[in-house]
């Protein structure tokens, strides 16, 4: 599904990703861990197409197509979804309207008609239960004045509605209390299918008790310094990152 081959990327003069390769197949869950500042968010943003990062070499293919050649909206329309580490506020635009616009754009890209607004309401009602969110939030401005936890839930709600093929969750767990964590990961698990894949970026192994990864990768200094199965996360929990970072 996703094939990252020796990617180098920078922001301004600063090289952040220094040769990353990663292959994600349908049905898999990958966890990317690593210390602060190691480049996890940068990798996530590069996959989503943030214009602030320049890919200087390497390639990324998605479903066999050149992902780097696509505009961010095209990537989204083709099923790439990034749950932002820092979701953005859009004052004056209701959550419901924003979601419906996004939903319809994706339908349009797939040659479908706009959804009937009533049908969309039904859909929202179902999805909002999945993340245990107060329906009143739908009528508030996108992320404006939301608490940290509310913003994260809102990202998962968007994911639930848009049903991506490849979801990247960037530190969706940080700022969530245990109950919220359970709800959010429950939502993510409920959306898991054989034909989609998830990349979970996290700082803590805690989340991986709920979302069980098939692979764990450790990112340090812009490189993947170790990959392994889910037991690697436990090892990191016990030993920290230093032994890997020093080795790298």
């Amino acid at each position, binding site marked *: 599904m996703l094939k990252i081959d020796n990617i180098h990327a920078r922001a301004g003069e600063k090289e952040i990703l220094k040769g990353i390769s990663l292959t994600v197949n349908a049905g898999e869950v990958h966890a990317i861990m690593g210390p602060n500042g190691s480049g996890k968010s940068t990798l996530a943003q590069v996959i989503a197409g943030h214009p*602030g990062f320049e890919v200087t070499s390497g390639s990324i293919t998605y479903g066999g197509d050149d992902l780097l050649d696509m505009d961010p*909206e095209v990537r989204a329309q083709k099923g790439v979804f990034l749950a932002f580490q820092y979701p953005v506020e859009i004052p004056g635009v209701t959550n419901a309207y924003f979601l419906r*616009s996004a939903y319809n*754009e994706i339908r349009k890209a797939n040659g479908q008609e706009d959804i009937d607004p009533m049908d969309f309401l039904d859909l929202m009602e179902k999805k909002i239960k999945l993340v245990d969110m107060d329906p009143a939030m739908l009528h508030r401005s996108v992320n404006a004045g939301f608490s940290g936890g509310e913003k994260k839930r809102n990202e998962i709600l968007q994911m639930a509605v848009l049903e991506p093929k490849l979801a990247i969750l960037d530190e969706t767990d940080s700022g969530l209390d245990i109950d919220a964590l359970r709800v959010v990961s429950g939502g993510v698990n409920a959306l898991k299918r054989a034909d989609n894949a998830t990349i979970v970026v996290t700082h803590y192994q805690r989340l991986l008790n709920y979302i069980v990864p098939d692979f764990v990768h450790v990112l340090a200094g812009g490189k993947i310094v170790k990959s392994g199965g889910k037991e690697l996360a436990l090892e990191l929990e016990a030993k920290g990152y230093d032994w890997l970072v020093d080795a790298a």
Partner: protein
Amino acid sequence: MGSSIETLVNKEYQYGFVTDVDSDTLAPGLTEEVVRLISSKKAEPEWLLEWRLKAYRRWLTMTEPHWPNVKYPPIDYQAARYYSAPKSVKPLQSLDEVDPELLATYKKLGISLTEQKMLAGVAVDAIFDSVSVGTTMKEELSKHGVVFCSFSEAVHNHPELIQKYLGSVVPYSDNFFAALNSAVFSDGSFCYIPKGVRCPMELSTYFRINAAETGQFERTLIVADEGAYVSYLEGCTAPKRSTNQLHAAVVELVALDRSTIKYSTVQNWYAGDKEGVGGIYNFVTKRGKAHADAKISWTQVETGSAITWKYPSVILQGDNSVGEFYSVAVVNNKQQADTGTKMIHVGKNTKSTIISKGISAGEGQNSYRGRVQVLPKAEGARNYTQCDSMLIGNKCGAHTFPYIEVANNSSMTEHEASTSKIGEDQIFYCKARGLSTEHAISLIVSGFCREVFKELPMEFALEAQQLLGITLEGSVG
């Protein structure tokens, strides 16, 4: 800002139409003779001619104001023509003859085929008869005693009302452009709502049907008698072109005790090309006087014109009267707008609210200019002003000039202001959800303007929102 926004900012916006008007036109220049001629062509009563002449003489002693924050080459008033009666508009035979860009805009605005034809000057088929629609509406209105007609008609049919209220809010001596308008105004609208009557319909559809004939020096007078209510809609989201560069309209609102006038405007005059060449200069004087317990509410969405100079104001004359001003002003390319409001608190416990949203893109310059004046006797007066600016790109500007004068100490005024830039992060967030850059900007900007849009009559709010999207799609992003 990313390069994508810059590119979109530089995209061209093309529209406009010019109807082929075979007109009865006076030679250029403004003299007393011209004023007399205009009056006689309209068969006006003597008192109105006198009024025009007084205005003309006063105008001669005045100079064009240069305090607004706008720049333009000197206007040669003697080179302009002051009378041009549309004799016959040669209708086009079908919409195929109309500028496809314009049709595309109409389509995006969801304007019905028939209305598209009317706006573009295409002969309308027998199925739809504008006269009959107009007549049906007029019948409905006259059942309630509402008078709604052209200014010229009103001069003949309701001279007592015109004589009583013309110039009562905006005297001919008010300012340079008001004096010019008073001397040479061509036509406009008149509306009277009798005591206790709630006008049975938004005066909008009707207006739009007639909107194609808007003149250069328009004069509008609306009188709401005691306890009456009216919602009036001026203008049209459809882009309009005019052969006259200078437009100087005057609008006077009279809200008698306990009445309400809601006046909404969507202004989309031709803004000129990317260099600002050929756009309309729109110098407007709009003012209302609110008597005891009355309310006047101005809502405006300004997207057109090369230069806009406009301050819809309210004189809060009576005790407990209320004034409101909700405004969205968009400038792009070389457009310049200096717009805002004046709230003059005369009566006790008067209240005013000002919500201004300025959006600047391209090399546009947007100024908010507001004056809140609380006179000594206006005890307990209140004003709330919120003035937000949004910048798109790096070459535009936003300026605010708030003036607050309070002459008693039982009054309260509150002023909030903010300036924000459409952030790359906001746009990227939308794009990461599948929205194009254009869609993203239109969404973000609509959100920014929400407090104003919700004041517009429902159907019009949707149109205004779309208009903003289209304006930004073509000219900003």
